């Protein structure tokens, strides 16, 4: 079967530096194989730009296999583009039709400053992790797999949250640029496991406060995050975090030590 070729119009956000004024620039992408991934399509366009002596479009990527969380891009207003449970690097051009116009913008949020074109600085997520997204005890060498019994449903619950690759699509999709889905996934995947339980309260308070300090918005329970998450993490982790935050706040206020 011959590979179908697509001719597309791209509307791409170009911004030379973090302080420069950005704008949407129109490009024609010609003869794009429908089997190409979205990032390969941009590679093709960039090749042409470089050949013409123009500045290529800067975008983030690393593994290109949907596991590292480095690729971003808001495609036609939707982080990681059309389709459920897929990252930009795993999105393929067969999801588009010949003649389509595609809008490509960075993940927009005050807490994710644009560095260049489509690349944003997501270190706010690192600061949130530093505020409690770990276990502070020495772990030593790996223990025997079943030395510590963890019921299967608990392990599954933790694992579904741990699938978060920290890409930031939840923030980019949220009408308020809130990071609640990311933070909830990171808080809860440790919070339900025996190793992480001990520091549960300190963790949720620390990470929510770090989230607030970074300038993310507030959750309004619209679940846009859940809809675009490439790992399909459920917004019910946010429910759980709200509950854990309330309990930890009360403990902090009246017990004052944990």
């Amino acid at each position, binding site marked *: 079967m011959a590979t179908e070729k697509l001719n597309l119009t791209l509307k791409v956000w170009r911004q030379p530096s973090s302080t420069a004024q950005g704008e949407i620039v129109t490009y024609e992408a010609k003869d794009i194989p429908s089997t190409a991934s979205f990032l390969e399509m941009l590679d093709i366009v960039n090749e042409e730009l470089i050949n013409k002596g123009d500045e290529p479009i800067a975008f983030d990527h690393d593994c290109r296999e949907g596991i590292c969380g480095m690729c971003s891009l808001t495609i036609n207003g939707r982080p990681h583009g059309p389709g459920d449970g897929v990252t930009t690097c795993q999105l393929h051009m067969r999801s588009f039709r010949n003649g389509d116009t595609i809008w490509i913008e960075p993940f927009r949020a005050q807490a994710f400053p644009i560095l260049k074109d489509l690349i944003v600085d997501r270190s706010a997520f690192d600061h949130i992790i530093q505020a409690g997204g770990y276990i502070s005890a020495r772990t030593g060498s790996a223990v025997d797999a079943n030395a510590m019994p963890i019921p299967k449903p608990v392990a599954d619950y933790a694992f579904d949250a741990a699938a978060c690759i920290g890409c930031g699509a939840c923030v980019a999709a949220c009408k*308020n640029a809130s990071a609640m889905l990311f933070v909830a996934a990171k808080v809860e995947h440790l919070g339900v496991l025996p190793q992480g339980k001990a520091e549960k309260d300190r963790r949720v308070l620390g990470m*929510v406060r770090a989230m607030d300090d970074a300038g*993310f918005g507030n959750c309004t329970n619209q679940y846009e995050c859940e809809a675009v998450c490439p790992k399909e993490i459920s917004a019910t982790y946010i429910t759980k975090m709200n509950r854990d935050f309330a309990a930890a706040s009360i403990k902090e206020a009246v017990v004052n030590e944990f």
Partner: protein
Amino acid sequence: MNLLESIKRFYASSVGKKLLVALSGVVLLLFLLGHLAGNLLIYMGREAINDYGEFLHHMLHGTGVWFARLGLLAAVTIHVVATIHLVQQNRAARENRYAYETTVRASKASRTMIISGIIILSFVIFHLLQFTILPGPGDQGYYDDQTSDHLRPDVFGMVVRAFQNILVCLFYIVSMGFLCFHLSHGVASVFQTLGLRSEKTAAPIEWFGRAYAAFIFLGNISIPIAVQLGFVHL
């Protein structure tokens, strides 16, 4: 850290403010249900609803109504102040909007909570002026001298006279529409904020929220409609 400091910290956090919005929202939701039950007494006639009005004003030697008013005022104040702060922060969190905007799942109601909220607030002010603050003993038909052995405010007559005006009816119906819209997102949202939603209960909670909103809407608008159609008359 002392208690006051803890409360300040709680309010300063996004989740803390959200919890306060939800708790004050629950107080208002329960009030709406009680208020509707009282309103529906109008269908049982002048005596029933005027008895109820008299009861409200004499409960706990007349202090009961003031406890309720102060509680409601506190709930409304917390709800409005916290939501305004939240909305301001949300706007600031994305100053540069997308050139191409899409919405995957968020309902219209959820995206316009502040607008429906402000309309509800203006309605509440009008409603209080009309039925609580302005009416006084000098007004025509203020007292009910038929259904009891002593003079007492005629709630029934006041409401029926007000709803004989079609413009007043329309204003009430439209306002209830906005309230219903606010609740169509708000009721289900409370469960999420208070940590009471799960994968299994998400769908029933959504339905419950819509049903609650519809019930409050239909119950309340039935009264101006009944007056207009002459089912309830002086």
